[in-house]
């Protein structure tokens, strides 16, 4: 049983009723009861194929049934169904040149895109935050698809370690600003589009100004502060946020902040404690993975612009490369959401670095220095002199395989507590890792266990490569 509100213009086909009560356990059953009782309504709501007309939306209370179980959505007694048309419009504008018609011909011959769709792509303005793993396929394919204006935000420089996945940059680009390298590749793919460089770190101070010029924001970032910043700015500016994230062999994608849909904070109101979720730089990532996820983001972006298909709004797509499986989770808008809920507490951009508990300075927090850190050059001198001391490497075994300091003993950080018995407390100890962060934790732990003569090698094996032995590869 449910109440249906009849829109004014349709009441003449429903015996002038503005509201009718009808039986049915699902939305589909109630609608069938409606058109059975008032057969004249049918042609106004359904097309010849018996499907709801393209402009007809049905709402159960305040929710669009498309985001619930559609016709199968259950109804209970006090529920109200409303029939609401979708309405849009605009000016007829822009044309394609002869060159563009040839270039986009495979789009133009599909009725779902056609001239109208290609012109929508041409008048669309999309911002890519990040030109790294996700940004690489995004930038290349969105440029190829003919998105009229693409903005890029990045401030990083191309490094050899990027090339395993960031296919928009090549070996010749190492050392070049990523944004420059990305723009060169994209304008080579498609010279008919406008590319705008925002060579800066996205921040609460500049986000509104940068986002203002774009219709859709695509998040290709790899850290929590920027992810929350992009989300909140998109919600506050009412711009969709096409989201993707990757780690090791798994990725996720969805569309946040679409009108009526959930946002990132509906899913994760609070960031994880700092350090709990490793970044790709710490945990690694399969080079192909960002290609798959970035292209899902690119597909969603193009669909949003064209207004075709079922978007990922309200669905989180999960991809597992090893199992080669896609799964999806339903996402619902959280009425209590601090930014997009009914009573938002976040109404302007905040300090996201602080919010995510990331220390402002780049270096990890220094442990209490009893004997201080030790420079790699000093460790080298000790080894050369034949000093008696224990050199412990707390990296993972697969990192040890890449490079190591001769004479070091491997005890991965996670195993230090249970293998502490192997470490002679009387001996002088030097601990190292890749950059000095994990070894600082190990040093802290050993000191708490009563080890007195324990020091951290500053800058890890990366500094060793810089200062002592350049033949040791960096990774």
């Amino acid at each position, binding site marked *: 049983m449910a109440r249906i*509100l009849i*829109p*004014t*213009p*349709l009441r003449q086909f429903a015996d002038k009723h*503005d509201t009718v009560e009808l039986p049915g356990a699902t939305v589909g059953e109630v609608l069938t009861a409606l058109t059975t009782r008032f057969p004249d309504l049918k*042609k*106004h709501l359904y097309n010849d194929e018996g499907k709801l007309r393209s*402009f*007809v*939306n049905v*709402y159960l209370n*305040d929710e*669009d049934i498309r985001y619930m179980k559609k016709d199968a959505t259950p109804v209970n007694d006090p529920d109200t169904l*409303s029939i*609401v*048309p*979708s*309405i*849009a*419009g*605009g*000016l*007829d*504008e822009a044309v394609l040149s002869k060159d563009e018609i040839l270039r986009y011909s495979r789009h133009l011959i599909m009725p779902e895109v056609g001239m109208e769709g290609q012109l*929508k792509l041409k*008048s*669309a*303005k999309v911002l890519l935050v990040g030109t790294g793993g996700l940004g690489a396929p995004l930038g290349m394919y969105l440029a190829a698809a003919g998105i009229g204006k693409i903005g890029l935000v990045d401030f990083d420089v191309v490094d050899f370690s990027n090339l395993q996945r960031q296919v928009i940059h090549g070996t010749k680009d190492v050392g070049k600003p990523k944004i420059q390298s990305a723009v060169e590749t994209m304008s080579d793919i498609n010279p008919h589009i406008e590319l705008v460089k925002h060579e800066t770190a996205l921040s609460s101070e500049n986000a509104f100004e940068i986002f203002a010029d774009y*219709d*859709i924001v695509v998040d290709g970032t790899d850290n929590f502060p920027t992810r929350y910043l992009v989300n909140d700015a998109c919600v506050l500016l*009412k*711009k*969709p946020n096409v989201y993707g994230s990757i780690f090791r062999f798994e990725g996720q994608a969805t569309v946040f902040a*679409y*009108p*009526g849909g959930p946002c990132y904070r509906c899913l994760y109101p609070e960031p994880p404690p700092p350090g709990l979720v490793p970044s790709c730089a710490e945990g690694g990532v399969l080079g192909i993975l960002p290609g798959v996820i970035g292209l899902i983001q690119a597909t969603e972006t193009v669909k*949003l*612009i064209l207004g075709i298909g079922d978007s990922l709004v309200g669905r989180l797509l999960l991809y597992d490369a090893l199992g080669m499986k896609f799964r999806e989770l339903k996402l619902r808008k959280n009425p209590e959401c601090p930014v997009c809920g009914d009573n938002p507490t976040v109404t302007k951009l905040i300090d996201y670095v602080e919010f995510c508990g990331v220390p402002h300075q780049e270096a990890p927090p220094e442990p209490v220095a009893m004997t201080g850190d030790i420079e790699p050059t000093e460790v080298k001198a000790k080894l050369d002199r034949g000093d008696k001391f224990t050199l412990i490497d707390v990296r993972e075994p697969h990192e040890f395989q890449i490079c190591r300091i001769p004479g070091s003993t491997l005890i991965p950080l996670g195993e230090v507590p249970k293998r502490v018995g192997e470490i002679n407390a009387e001996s002088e100890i030097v601990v190292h890792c890749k950059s000095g962060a994990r070894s600082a934790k190990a040093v802290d732990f050993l000191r708490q266990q009563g080890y007195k003569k324990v020091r951290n090698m500053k800058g890890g094996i990366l500094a060793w490569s810089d200062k002592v032995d350049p033949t040791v590869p960096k990774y």
Partner: protein
Amino acid sequence: MIEIERGPWREMVNHAQAIYPNECCGAMIGKIDGDAKTVSHAIALDNVSVGSQAARYELSPKDLLRAEREARERKLDLIGIYHSHPDCGAYFSETDLKNSCPWYSFVVLSVQKGRFDHANSWLPNAEQTQAEKEELIWPES
């Protein structure tokens, strides 16, 4: 025939001028007496289009639902939808037609260089292939 009273007309014109150079949109509420419609309230709504808003508008169905509810509460009817055409005539474009619905009057306000210029009202047919011009009366100045 659709007649817009002074209060709502002023709100619609102000809305269209304030949102210029983008397109604005909103709902019109009032009474229907046979073919004669009188608009007594205008409700400005958000343009939720993800395309360029200089040449596109889209209404959120939720906003429309709210407008419909407000009409019911006032014992009035949702009569039509208005939107603006920045620096362009008040014609009913292909895009307007394809994304319209045959249930309402569609009032288009032409805003030239930031100032209201002229307006027309349109009635789309059921198949959304044609729109018929409807007599529109608005208060002068």
